[in-house]
């Protein structure tokens, strides 16, 4: 009887302790590992070369939380160059990213070591103190200020001018178009000439009509000009600001949709990607796309189309590379109706990290290293980097994947018009609400007046602190 009691007591205690022990053990093991790693990490003669590379032999472990696969490629390259380092890269969808970082860092997690952000996410993340101050020793980021394109350098600063993140890329927007279709329909494939077909919204509609006459569609979705829309920020001095360019963009989307000038795919959906690779069916009511025979028959009867153009920032080369399939080599890039830009991955060090020195080596490797960035240009098939020495070197680079077009010179020209003062922390919600208004009008769910009023109401409800003049 006594034995039974003792056994049950021990069991109960074990159960309780195991609960508490789970967390405690983890952290203590982690801490132990970290200390071990910290002693082994990186610092054998930590002298930097002029180009930001470190002459030290690096070792240790890093955890990177990022928004897309690009940093995974950088991490692989980093491990190749520094076999003693193990980098674990976790890709998190942009919609979930800020929340995940917030939960981890506010919970005191020591990992991730490297965190990133897109420009519109950065102000909140800087305010929350998630990013390490890179101006202080041993980083002394300000020493590299003249090596990075000015606007990129500034986007990585908080409101007190402290450097907290750096991006390896600049992100001007352009129009990726099919050279073969251009030649057939417009008799030329010259980027300058094709750019004229997109010079303003009225011309875009005319271009769309002409393409439709030849059995093509100008865009896959009606939101392709989004990166070029809006002349001024959504919020100016605490006031909601809807400029004329926003209304013009709204009208364009409605017209493209209602006149059947697109392939009716949503941006980032499977049919949208599919349209990069070639034919997509023109989806009329009597085409059963799920019946292979019927689809093939429909294709014979020319009930299919090809999409002429996609509006994307310079990192669109990565999207193209992964999706253009058989249309590889048939693409060109030209200017859009205005200067535009979008996204950009800004890399920084988590303020909670216990491996900051190694993390800084990784940041420098991705953003301030000639060899890495030259490799990246080749690997990405022409992504445009923010590191000035490599930019200058590649100014006359002829991109074989884009008909030997001088894509670098093109993107650099577009980048001159980038105005990052247009980025505000309100962009996501206000942009989504404007998009919802456009959809409601184009599909006939609401009148223009109703939809715009609903837009104002949504913004007012979400951000009561903003002044709204209708």
């Amino acid at each position: 009887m006594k034995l039974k009691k003792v056994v049950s007591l021990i069991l109960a205690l074990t159960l309780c302790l195991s609960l508490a022990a789970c967390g405690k053990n983890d952290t203590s093991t982690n801490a132990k590992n970290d200390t071990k790693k910290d002693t082994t990490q990186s610092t054998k003669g930590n002298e930097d070369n002029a180009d930001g590379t470190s002459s030290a032999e690096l070792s240790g472990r890093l955890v990177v939380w990022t928004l897309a696969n690009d940093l995974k490629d950088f991490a692989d390259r980093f491990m190749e160059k520094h076999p003693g380092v193990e980098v674990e890269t976790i890709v998190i969808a942009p919609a979930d990213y800020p929340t995940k970082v917030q939960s981890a860092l506010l919970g005191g997690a020591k990992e991730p070591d490297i965190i990133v952000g897109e420009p519109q996410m950065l102000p909140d993340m800087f305010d929350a103190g998630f990013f390490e101050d890179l101006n202080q020793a041993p980083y002394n980021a300000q020493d590299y200020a003249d090596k990075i394109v000015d606007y990129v350098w500034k986007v990585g600063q908080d409101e007190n001018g402290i450097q907290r993140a750096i991006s390896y890329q600049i992100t001007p927007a352009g129009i990726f178009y099919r050279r073969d279709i251009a030649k057939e329909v417009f008799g030329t494939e010259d980027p300058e000439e094709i750019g004229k077909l997109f010079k303003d919204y009225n011309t875009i509609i005319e271009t769309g009509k002409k393409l439709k006459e030849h059995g093509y569609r100008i865009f896959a979705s009606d939101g392709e000009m989004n990166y070029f829309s809006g002349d001024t920020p959504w919020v100016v001095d605490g006031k909601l600001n809807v400029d004329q360019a926003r209304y013009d963009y709204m009208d364009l989307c409605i017209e493209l949709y209602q006149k059947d000038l697109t392939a009716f795919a949503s941006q980032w959906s499977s049919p949208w990607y599919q349209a990069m690779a070639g034919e997509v069916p023109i989806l009329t009511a009597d085409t059963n796309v799920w019946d292979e025979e019927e689809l093939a028959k429909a294709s014979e009867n020319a009930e299919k189309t090809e999409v002429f153009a996609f509006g994307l920032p310079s990192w669109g080369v990565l999207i193209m590379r992964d999706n253009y399939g058989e249309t590889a080599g048939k693409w060109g890039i030209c200017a859009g109706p205005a200067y535009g830009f979008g996204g950009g991955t800004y890399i920084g060090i988590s303020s909670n990290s216990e491996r900051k020195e190694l993390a800084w080596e990784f940041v420098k490797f991705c953003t301030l290293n000639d060899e890495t960035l030259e490799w990246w240009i080749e690997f990405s098939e022409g992504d445009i980097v923010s590191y000035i020495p490599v930019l200058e070197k590649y100014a006359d680079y002829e991109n074989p994947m884009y008909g030997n077009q001088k894509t670098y010179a093109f993107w650099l020209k577009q980048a001159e018009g980038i105005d990052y003062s247009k980025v505000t922390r309100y962009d996501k919600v206000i942009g989504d609400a404007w998009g919802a208004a456009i959809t409601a009008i184009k599909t006939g769910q609401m009148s223009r007046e109703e939809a715009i009023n609903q837009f104002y109401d949504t913004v007012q409800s979400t951000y009561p602190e903003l002044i709204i003049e209708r």
Partner: protein
Amino acid sequence: MVLHFWAYQRGQVMNSVKKVKKRNINNVAYLFVLPFVIVFLVFNVYPVLRTLQLSFTSYKGYGKIDYIGFANYIRVLKDKFFWRALGNTANIWGVNIIVQLGLALLLTIVFNDIKYRIKGLSIFRAIFYLPNLIATTSVAFLFKTLMDWRFGTFNQLLIKLGLIDTPVDWLGSTKTAPYVISMIGAWMWFGNSFILLMAGVQGISRDYFEAATIDGAGRWKIFTKITMPLLRPILLYVTVTSAIGGIQMFDIPFLVSGGTMGNPSGKLQTAIMYLYKFGFETYQVGYASAVAYIIFLIILVVSILQFRLYTRKEDR
């Protein structure tokens, strides 16, 4: 007398031994419930109290906490989009529960019919329950594909059958999108309700049904006079749990509409999507906490009302 005293003494000693034993056993039992209590305190009680505290602040998820009294609660109650989201939730759930319970009840009647005993109940039960086992993300993706305006199989089927001439934008129209969500919910949960109702019906003595049949009662009479009244506790359980789950509806409409805006035209924005928008997209954590408490109070009121409704009927 001595004997009596001895017996009395022995009784007292035995009682105190029993008391001691009882106390010891209780203490050991506390250790057994301790793990649950710890988990409950950390993961249930603490978040609930912390949310209440935050609902009186302008906390952004980081930085300092400023107390602003009832301002968040006043803002929630004044915001038409909160009421719209609540209306959307009620609309979607209302249609869902009618279809879900209706279907489950119909199947229960069919499978319990005393004359036509259907074989293979366990197989059917498993089949009906299957949709519940599919991950919600998969269900959302499946229906998004099936109900797609231009690509969707559902439209192609209707056109082939000659029921419609042009494809219907099921998920893009304000007139149809909420009810597509209702149907998805009903499809996912009717199996669960069916199992519960079957268990309820099988708990009713067969004698009642046999006696009623002998007395000449028809199916409808048996259903309304025997099955339904005796099923009331189970029906109460199903509707209360469904109402609580319904008010907390999030994943399917969020995934189908592709964000917290609840497009088309906000018709799919449920109360929890509204909460999520403020808590996780715009970092107004204090405000989102107040929304959470108001939703909690609404769930409480709805549950109490449902209990009252059913117990009153029972009293009659």
